[in-house]
């Protein structure tokens, strides 16, 4: 076991440097992956993204709120094999409403200002992932787990 600070700093810098993550949901047991623009809280307890309520991922989450999200720093160059980092974040997702939705939407648009119209559309849902664990992969094979909420 090691002190969390360096790990948390690494994860935060990875989140900061990447706009998009790959969200994993499932439909009747069949895995389904989607690219989403995400934002996060600095204490790493919440990741959030927006989606139309008509999407497959929205339906999948409605049926099972357990998800994983992969956020990585790959550059699609050779150096990825020793330099790229990736975090798999696991947790449960709910649709935010009321004050929570308003606050998080504001934060979301600071990070993704060009999604303003999308966010304010009536069919758009702001989805909040309560983070359970972050699994950080560095230097090709070093894997560290950071438990955010038991």
């Amino acid at each position, binding site marked *: *076991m*090691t*002190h*969390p600070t360096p*790990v948390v700093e690494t994860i935060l810098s990875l989140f900061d440097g990447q706009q998009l993550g790959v969200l994993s949901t499932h439909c009747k047991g069949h895995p389904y992956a989607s690219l989403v623009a995400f934002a996060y809280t600095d204490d790493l307890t919440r990741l959030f993204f927006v989606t139309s309520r008509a999407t497959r991922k929205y339906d999948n989450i409605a049926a099972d709120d*357990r998800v994983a999200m992969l956020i990585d720093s790959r550059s699609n160059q*050779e*150096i990825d*094999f*020793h*330099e790229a980092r990736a975090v798999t974040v*696991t947790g449960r997702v709910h649709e935010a409403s009321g004050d929570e939705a308003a606050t998080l939407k504001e934060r979301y648009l600071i990070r993704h200002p060009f999604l303003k119209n999308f966010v304010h559309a009536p069919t758009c849902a702001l989805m909040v992932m309560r983070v359970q*664990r972050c*699994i950080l*992969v560095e*230097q*090709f*094979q*070093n*894997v*560290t*787990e*950071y*438990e955010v909420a038991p």
Partner: protein
Amino acid sequence: MKLVIALSDIRDAPVAWVGGKATALARMKWAGVPVPDAVCVTSEAYRLFVSEGGLKERILMELSRKPFAQMRWEEVWDAALRIRNLFLTTPWPPHLYAALAEGLNGFLDERPLVVRSSCPGEDSAESSFAGLHESYVNVRGLEATLERIKGVWASLWSDGALLYRRELGGDVHLSTMAVIVQHLVTGEVSGVGFSQSPHTSSEGAVEAVYGLNQGLVDGTIEPDHWRLDRETGAVLEHREPLRSSYVGPDSTGVRAFPLSGAKAQTPPLMPEEVTRIFELACRLERLFGAAQDLEWTLAKGTLHALQSRPITTLDSGDSSDRNGLYQSLHRSYENLNALRERIENHLLPEMVRAVDDMAEAPLLTLSDRDLAEEIKARLEVNERWVQVYWTEFIPYAHGIRLFGQVYNDAVKPEDPFEFTSLLTHTPLMGMARNRRLNELAELFRTRGDLGQEAGRNPIHLPPELEEPLTAYIDTYGAFPWLEGEGSRSQQTRASLVTLLFEMARHPPASEPTIEAAPQLEAQFLGCFAEGEKAYARGVLALGRSSYRLRDDDNIYMGQLETQLLRAVDEGRKRLEEGHEDTVTAQLRDEIERFGIRSTIKSAASDTPVGGPVVKARQIMGQPAGQGMAQGRARVIRTPKDLGGLKHGEILVCDVVEPNMTWAVPLAAGIVERRGGMLIHGAIIAREYGLPCVTGVPDATQRIETGDRVTVDGYLGMVILGESTSVF
């Protein structure tokens, strides 16, 4: 950019293309100084080979297994060996091969060649990589030359070069290499000349040996040394060594030959020749504008400059020491054979005698005063042998490394550590001790009822167990790792009995035989021409002897320590019983000295880090023993922890100390914080065919006893916990 440039055309080529050595040689040639005819294979050829062969990322991955600054020398050496093998086994891109063949074509004839590094960063005023990059002497033909060019390129990533670059604070990854291919000038006398001595700024210096100067450069042959007054050029002193051998060309490469009696009695240079060499060094100082370190050879009356570089040591003595240190990481075949002779024929027998003498001393009947003297004497003996351990035994481990390099150069195996298969199953004392322990366990196994009846640790054993147990303790002594845990003799016995009952509950560990070993040996020897086979056999024998000593020396040192402990134990007993007087004060002093004595123990582990919130799931180390094992971790943080080791557990420790090897057969796998393929723990793991991963950062801090651990000894990974534990 051209791939091959003649020395005479180098004048305007940037140093980044041709390197420091080629630039200096070209300037000397233009200034009319005789230099060997040469061509330069530019750094563009290196760049093409590395990028088209896909080596760049593989090199970086090798050096990124853990932060480079945290890698121990042994780990850097392992990485360097893997990288070297990448160069040797990567085929030439066809167009590069064709371009080099064409470029070298006009230069190559029947004459022997020298292939040497010319790194853009070396031989500058800021840094000297002298001796850290490879040079090959007496190479013939295109194929051999191209092979040697790969060898020179690989030496950019040698352990010494990597560590030196780390020391200089540069980016270890930003490196490139040009290569000089020269005609070999076989001088009758060779050496070095300093226009300004690295040690005394008012002096110059000249050193000379008979034959080629490879022996001088690698330290195998001690040179004649002249100190000169820098102003007047007058010789201030001539130091003569015992001259016995010289280095000359063999069928391929070079080797040491005995000197004739007449030459052994005669300095290699006449006084006027010394002056001539010093004058050339001074002339080059004027040419280059800085004090020079010149390598020269004298052939049929002509003085040839082989290379010249600025002396970097005047202003930065420290970095020169470091360079020397990194150079000392490699030893020549001759040097190691001399060391082998000294160790096997003198030092080890002397150690055995020292142990025997101490074992015979009647400690119980000595007066307190004599006992204090005895402890003092034993401390001195111990001190001396700890010195010998660091200065003679540890450097001898280079014998394994030399064999590994020769094997890989000859065989070019896919697995750069294949050579270790030829080293295992040499008769190691540690393995002999473990076999004795197995025999004892077998006796305990036949009395399986006893462990249950008498509890975990019976005090009284039947004579058929007690006698061999006592004999074992008499032979192999106490377990030094239990020191400080109370009465040692009782503790040793109790721990041993616990261990034996644990071993008796399970089938005996078997040592696998490596069936491929004879075949590998034949393959290795088959790579050498008839005239070189003796050398190949010699290097293999050296590797085996060095490998054996890597384990045995620890046993010998343990025996010395045991004898010292015996005397100290007796002293402590008397102090506990007796009253205080001047004699007991002396005894007490000696025992206190015992507490601060030098030992051969490894450096302490990484500093523990706090805060149990983050848990490692998978940690990268070095694959040091092939195989895969799963089990509960037994983390060794204090000596007592080892006593709890159960059959089938994964031994997680800072270092497998030599006196812990008895525990290895119980374990299903080994995880070690200290890194290296050739460290003691890795050697023993391979003897038992156990999966082993070494160089795992903070292993004993990040893993807890009882954790579920998977050891992947193929990939060098340690995986913690169940895969489902995340959900």
